[in-house]
């Protein structure tokens, strides 16, 4: 009872110093949580990817396309049900910050993505319109696109002013599904390429390959790639999930940097906290010596310091913890749809709690040990 009273009143002694330290902890725990959530969000797309779809791409690089003549040979491989084409378009809607993905796809692409729900009428309307496009619900909501709207896209890989007419809006089968992209006809893109002798037509970025059994993914992948061994354009086939992860790992350095920064933030607050506790403990040397003279043991002194450190960390860390989901929601709003899934994970919360507690303990160790060991006569002399 008395101990708690001393701890809390000591913590409130330098209100500005304690306040700034609490604020620092709040920011550190919040920043750590948000950075970890960014990392999670980065991988979320890959996690959601299907294992019953394979992606066949050029084994050299994603920048190399594959001839559509491969299609029939892939179809011939045992276990393959559907082969669709998909080409990354990479255009810009009004301004670069309005980034959303666009793919030029064949109609059977829709069959492979059962998680995107589209009415048969809309699908038919799309099939009938050469310039037609399908967009996801999240994209439609973000910019207020409706069926019949014309979306202007400035091509960068395929320069020019493109116009797509919204013919359908697909819904995600559940809320983890990202519906923030636009699909249009591969044929429409190909017509454009055919008209330009300097460009290579009849190519696809990747083939999306549907298979009958997910457990045969590896075997089918090997069979597909074997078809094109020693050809001009060798292929690399893997599950969509593996493909997404490979795509993500291109940014591995960035992710690693974000991870490092999140821990650096914690180390910085640890240094600040340790400094605060060392300053407080040093100022109170005479008080600790007095307490020892009165008969209080070194353990009591250590508890006073550890308790104060923990109190500051619990308040600051707790506030940061409480703020994190709110900040994440706000971040998701302002960041548009770069991270369609942006939720603070359970693991992140646990790590935040662990970091705050660890900072509290570690920052107190040296001052607590020093103060508890101070010789009474030396400590008393420090006063006079």
């Amino acid at each position, binding site marked *: 009872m*008395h101990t708690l*009273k*001393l701890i809390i*009143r*000591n913590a409130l*002694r330098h209100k500005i110093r304690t306040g700034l330290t609490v604020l620092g902890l709040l920011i550190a725990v919040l920043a750590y949580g948000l950075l970890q959530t960014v990392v999670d969000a980065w991988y979320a797309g890959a996690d959601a990817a299907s294992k019953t779809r394979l992606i066949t791409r050029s084994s050299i690089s994603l920048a190399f396309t594959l001839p559509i003549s491969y299609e029939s040979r892939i179809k011939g491989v045992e276990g393959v049900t559907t082969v669709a084409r998909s080409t990354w378009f990479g255009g810009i809607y009004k301004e670069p910050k309005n980034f959303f993905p666009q793919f030029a796809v064949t109609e059977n692409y829709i069959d492979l993505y059962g998680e995107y729900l589209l009415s048969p009428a809309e699908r038919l309307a799309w099939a009938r319109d050469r310039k037609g496009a399908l967009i996801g619900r999240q994209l439609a909501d973000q910019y207020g696109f409706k069926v019949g709207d014309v979306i202007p896209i400035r091509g960068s890989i395929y320069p020019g002013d493109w116009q797509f007419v919204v013919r359908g809006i697909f819904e995600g089968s559940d809320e983890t599904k990202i519906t923030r992209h636009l699909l249009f006809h591969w044929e429409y893109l190909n017509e454009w390429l055919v008209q330009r002798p300097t460009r290579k037509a009849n190519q696809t970025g990747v083939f999306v390959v549907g298979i009958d059994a997910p457990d045969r993914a590896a075997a089918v992948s090997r069979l597909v790639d074997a078809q094109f061994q020693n050809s001009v354009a060798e292929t690399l086939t893997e599950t969509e999930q593996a493909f997404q992860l490979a795509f993500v790992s291109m940014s591995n350095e960035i992710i690693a940097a974000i991870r490092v920064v999140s821990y650096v933030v914690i180390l910085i607050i640890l240094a600040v906290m340790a400094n605060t506790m060392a300053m407080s403990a040093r100022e109170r040397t*005479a*008080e600790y010596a*007095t*307490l*020892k*003279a*009165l*008969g*209080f*043991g*070194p353990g009591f002194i250590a508890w006073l310091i550890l308790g104060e450190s923990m109190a500051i960390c619990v308040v600051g860390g707790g506030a940061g913890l409480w703020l994190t989901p709110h900040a994440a929601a706000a971040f998701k709003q302002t960041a548009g749809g770069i991270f369609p899934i942006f939720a603070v994970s359970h693991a992140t919360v646990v790590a935040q709690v662990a970091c705050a507690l660890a900072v509290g303990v570690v920052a107190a160790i040296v001052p607590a040990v020093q103060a508890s060991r101070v*010789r*009474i*006569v030396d400590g*008393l002399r420090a*006063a*006079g």
Partner: protein
Amino acid sequence: MPATQPVIEIRNLVKSYHRGGQIVPVLTNITLDIQRGEFTALMGPSGSGKSTLLNLIAGIDKPDSGMLRVGGLDITVLNEGELADWRSHNVGFVFQFYNLMPVLSAYENIELPLTLTNLTRAERRERVELTLSMVGLSDRADHYPSELSGGQQQRVAIARAVITDPVLIVADEPTGDLDRQSASDILAMLQRLNTELDTTIVMVTHDAFAAKTARCMVYLDKGELILQPPVI
């Protein structure tokens, strides 16, 4: 224990400090008895070793050699923990700069040593209130040290020192930071404690006026007892 046995028995006490690899002798061969119920003033010039001797008697420092018995117990053989426990029951401290906990009220400061005992909250309250009235600060119970004058703070410190009913009260220059009026109030209070409660008091001072309050004077110079103190 025979009634005549001194409460403090010091035999051939030696104490030196190490400073920068050098050994600085502070007390050389002190032999001294202090009787129970005595009010002793420890006098001497600055740096003569008064505080050092007082600290040894109070059990917050350890001698290099010699014997030191307080209340019949040889405290030189006790370890840190035993000494702490012994101090909490037997010694009351009064310091020059009061050394109160700034975050605790007068009441809480006085109660502090009692939190090391098994007394209940109600028992503690009763004792603290009694002691507060004894030092004339009942109306200041909720004041923090920063809200009290130097003299009032020292009265709180005296209350904290007597609350456990110790065998011995040690006071190191208890009036050193006070104006004359407050100083004589404090000295009168110590005198009352000594006569009314029969508490043994050892007080370090270099103020002749303060020393006159005491019933007995011991004079230290350069770490040695002077048997014939100079006339004050």
